[in-house]
């Protein structure tokens, strides 16, 4: 009797086993990267990057290309070329060509956001030159997607690229009073890629571009905590390279005049390189001052540029929102260009390495 009961209890489980579609990892093609290029008005090319694992543990990159007017139909078009079903769960990087990005990309990102199998940590980037060409390069045996992903992630963690991923993009995009930005990749040669700068958006269209030399200053402005490297020229043709280990920024609205905003930037750094005789305490002071001036200059220029373009990647609008009851975004936007924004940097050199 008991056995019968146990059987009756287990029977539905056996029936359930065949209920859903199975996806066996050897029998699917996992998309690891995607790229979008504009060819003419309302037509674009979608490129999907798939990895094939070879017996010697290296990875072969395969791309599927199709042309369309709708994002979903690109994928279903690519399905028709693939011997195994294409699945989106493994996607790690999405590249938008520069011109493509000028026309707005949120409709394309919607699909990645809606798809539950796509994670929040994937990177979105723009590309100088064709996204398809970028994905088709030969960047070593670990596969292009891994190469590009690692390139971005170590530069974000230790270098000059601001924090960026799908979640942060969506966070800023849907945040009142903040605009989005994405790193830009540039294929220098068939097997070399560099991060060439940051693309600045207004709503979801690219409007401005920050060169890679200015990226560190940009990161100081947009990331709450950041680290990175930069060089300063000193008197007597000396040069120093400073590694900022910790930096913090905070905003302060002037109490009497709410159109005046000060951005305080605190940087704690160490000297990495110095081309001079001896690094005396006096020169350390000089470096501190030089770095401070440079940060103030460069950051002010960036802020002015954003005000002229009407884009707000720093999130000044958001800061005003948190400080104002009954915040009126439209009024703020009209007034954005007239805001008087000042930068105040405070630099401390903590260490100078193992030699003077």
């Amino acid at each position: 009797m008991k056995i019968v009961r146990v059987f009756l209890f287990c029977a539905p489980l056996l029936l359930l086993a065949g209920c859903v579609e199975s996806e066996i990892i050897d029998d699917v093609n996992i998309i690891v990267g995607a790229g979008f290029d504009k060819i003419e008005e309302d037509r674009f090319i979608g490129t999907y990057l798939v990895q094939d694992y070879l017996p010697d543990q290296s990875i072969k990159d395969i791309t599927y290309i199709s042309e369309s007017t709708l994002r979903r139909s690109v994928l279903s078009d690519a399905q028709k070329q693939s011997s195994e079903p294409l699945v989106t769960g493994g996607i790690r990087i999405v590249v938008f060509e520069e011109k493509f990005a000028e026309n707005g990309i949120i409709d394309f990102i919607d699909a990645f956001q809606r798809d539950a199998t796509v994670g929040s940590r994937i990177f979105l980037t723009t590309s100088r030159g064709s996204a398809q060409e970028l994905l088709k390069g030969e960047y070593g045996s670990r596969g292009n997607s891994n190469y590009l992903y690692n390139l971005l992630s170590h530069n974000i963690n230790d270098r000059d690229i601001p924090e960026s991923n799908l979640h942060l993009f969506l966070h800023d995009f849907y945040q009142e009073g903040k605009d989005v930005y994405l790193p830009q990749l540039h294929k220098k040669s068939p097997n070399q890629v560099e991060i060439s700068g940051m693309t600045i958006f207004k709503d979801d269209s690219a409007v401005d571009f920050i060169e890679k030399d200015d990226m560190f200053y940009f990161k100081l402005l947009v990331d709450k905590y950041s680290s990175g490297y930069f060089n300063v020229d000193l008197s007597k043709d000396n040069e120093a390279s400073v590694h900022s280990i910790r930096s913090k920024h905070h905003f302060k609205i002037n109490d009497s005049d709410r159109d005046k905003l000060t951005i305080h930037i605190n940087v704690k750094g160490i000297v990495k390189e110095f081309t001079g005789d001896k690094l005396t305490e006096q020169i350390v002071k000089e470096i501190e001052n030089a770095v401070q001036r440079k940060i103030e200059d460069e950051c002010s220029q960036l802020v002015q540029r954003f005000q002229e373009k009407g884009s707000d990647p720093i999130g000044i609008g958001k800061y005003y929102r948190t400080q104002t009851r009954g915040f009126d975004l439209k009024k703020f936007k009209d007034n954005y260009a007239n805001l008087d924004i000042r930068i105040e940097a405070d630099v401390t050199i903590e260490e100078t390495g193992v030699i003077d």
Partner: protein
Amino acid sequence: MASQPVPERLQISPFLVFYLVMSMQVGIGVLGFQRILANYAGYDGWISIIIAGFVIHGVMWAIYKIAETVDGDIVTAHEYFAGRFLGRILSSVFILYFMLYMLTVLRTYIEVIQTWIFPEMGTFWFALGFITLCIYIVAGGFRTVAGIAFFGLVLPTYLVLTLGFTFKFSDFTSLLPVWDHSIKDIVMGSYAMTLTYIGFEIVLFIYPFIKNPRQSKKWAHLAILSTTLLYVVLAIITFGYFSEGQLQKNIWATLSIWQITRFPFVERFEYIGIANWNLIILPNICISLWAASRILKRLFHVQQRKGILFIAGIIVILCSLFQTRASINILNDYTGKIGFFINFIYLPMLLVAVKIAKKVKKQ
């Protein structure tokens, strides 16, 4: 009114009330309450949660007052002031209420699996499998159900830790300025929390099964306090992690948070989290299945075993009738509304009625 007292060997220790109440409260609402809350009270929503928590403490006090006055469960209370016939009609409404509760929890959970993991999974088959497990548990008696409530709450607690992954990407200044919404908005937010909060009324049904019920009071209140704290923390983490516009796009914010979680051994955490949620909703279904069948037994003298099978069968069939997001949303909406009426309007009224009846009987 006469119901023989529950023998001691079938009763539970007072502290288990904590697990019964909290595991009944924490269920399917937790997965996505943030969006609905923010819809009314914006990012001041966490204040709404605290207000709702206070109100529930009050209702819990009323529940114990009712149970102590009549020294029994809700069926006894109904017969106490409304007589045999009317009392039965009032009590039988609660069978439907618990069935609705079960239906909402189970169907919404199945929807989550269907959107996040297996789009093709059949509603009927999963419901059947899950309900079979519940029948098995409830057939073991009330003490087994209380045991499941314990495990269903304790085992998944580690999930709270995974929320820590969000801190790197969070900006808690989004919560500023505090009190940027009117009192009305914030109270509406509390109202919107109903679906996430309900389940505590179970005390009124399990009361005869508690050993030394007076001692269980503090555990019941502690359960409500813990649930409130859990929801406040979860709301603040969510508000820091998502921007307001972004949150409006995410139906299940708690699950979307897991999309950022990554371990070296598992790339994405939602699958583990959703599978674990099985354990969280298991006590939800088991307790309400037990409660519904218990009322059925008390009212119509149906054998509890038969009652369980009957109710479970209806739930499985009803589950398959809801097919789209829109219809499930309506189901959730109505359960929230009905839950609000029963818990926050009917139960206080019941206390007043019972007190009046007592005065009248004394004279």
